[in-house]
């Protein structure tokens, strides 16, 4: 459906030659932009209707006073499905610390939240298929679990700013949410407006980059430089992703373009995770509660984890492919 729309607009409407670079790029752009935005609106709306008004405040109450592994499991899964704006990083961090939740669990939450969200997962399914979506989510959950655990080993308590320990958090008595269908409908619509309003730029940029890559980068160049199976491709992808930031959804069209040109799955996954999970704005915000040593460690642990995931998936898919 979206492909026919793109065909219509680009080949018939603009009269471009299908074999030209520009046409290929534009076609990709039109197809993906329409597909992604339609899916975004649908998915966010449905998720908004279904979501049992999960909030970081509720997560905090669920997670506190539980044995480590339980707390971590909850933090990771709930982090994956909770909506979370970077500006909430500081109060969230402090709130978790104040509740006595171990720092490692908090870090697990902070890793899972930006990287995995159900919206991106559904869009992944729509664009790249079930298997890849499941891989991304599974890899993300694993990294969040172990990432938090490893952070804990380094005893990051010593790097938390002193004032954090002194803050007393009040008990939030939030008003009862309106659970009627009308109330949920209103909430879901507000979610659509808010989230699309927040990420549409990232999606356009992501699709734009993907379109350029798809249209202008020749497959031979890709297979020589990005898909030749050299060990350093994955670390390069991760390093490239660290300074770049995109909302998890925005990076999907770029991944789509890369995969269609033959870039290995592991390398693509590593880039996706690196771009989505590590963002300079979020790190700067976290700097208000933890010292730079902890931030550096956080980036390092994640970078290593993504490289391992990338290598792992590359190795598995290579051995599984025939010939």
């Amino acid at each position, binding site marked *: 459906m979206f492909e026919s729309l793109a065909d219509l607009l680009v080949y018939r409407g603009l009269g471009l030659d299908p074999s030209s670079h520009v046409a290929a790029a534009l076609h990709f752009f039109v197809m993906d932009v329409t597909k992604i935005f339609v899916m975004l609106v649908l998915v966010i709306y449905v998720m908004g209707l279904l979501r049992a008004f999960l909030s970081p405040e509720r997560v905090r109450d669920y997670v506190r006073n539980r044995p480590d592994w339980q707390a971590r499991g909850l933090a990771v899964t709930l982090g994956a499905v909770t909506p979370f704006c970077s500006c909430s990083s500081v109060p969230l961090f402090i709130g978790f610390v104040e509740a006595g939740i171990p720092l490692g669990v908090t870090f697990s939450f902070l890793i899972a939240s930006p990287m995995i969200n159900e919206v991106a997962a559904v869009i992944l399914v729509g664009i790249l298929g079930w298997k890849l979506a499941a891989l991304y989510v599974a890899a993300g959950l694993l990294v969040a679990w172990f990432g938090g655990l490893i952070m804990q080993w380094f005893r990051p308590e010593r790097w938390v700013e002193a004032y954090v320990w002194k803050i*007393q958090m009040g008990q939030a008595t939030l008003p009862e949410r309106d659970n009627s269908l009308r109330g949920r409908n209103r909430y879901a619509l507000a979610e659509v407006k808010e989230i699309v309003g927040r990420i549409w730029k990232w999606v356009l940029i992501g699709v734009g980059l993907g379109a350029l890559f798809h249209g202008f980068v020749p497959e031979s160049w890709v297979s020589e430089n990005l898909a030749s199976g050299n060990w350093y491709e994955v670390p390069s992808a991760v390093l490239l992703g660290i300074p770049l930031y995109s909302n998890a959804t925005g990076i999907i069209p770029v991944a789509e373009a890369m995969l269609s040109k033959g870039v290995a799955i592991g390398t693509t996954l590593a880039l996706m995770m690196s771009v989505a999970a590590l963002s300079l704005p979020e790190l700067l915000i976290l700097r208000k509660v933890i010292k730079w040593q902890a931030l550096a460690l956080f980036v390092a642990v994640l970078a290593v984890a993504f490289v391992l995931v990338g290598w792992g998936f590359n190795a598995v898919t290579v051995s599984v492919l025939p010939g």
Partner: protein
Amino acid sequence: MKNIKVLGSGCRNCETTANLITMAANQAGVEIELEKVTDIAQIMAYGVMSTPGVVVDGQLVHAGGLPGPDLIRQWISQ
């Protein structure tokens, strides 16, 4: 006069929320005292972890995400 506090440390949604509340109050012709609370210790004292939070006459009425226009109107007219 109604006292409305917007809790948040300067992110875009917090600014927007404050503006929306001011506009709604002007439209309804209701006088309000709007305060922006950016100190993290004060924000947390209300039990808020996801900003923006909104407190009307000492009562927490909202936390997390942009409040809808109906909700804001409700606060102004209560």
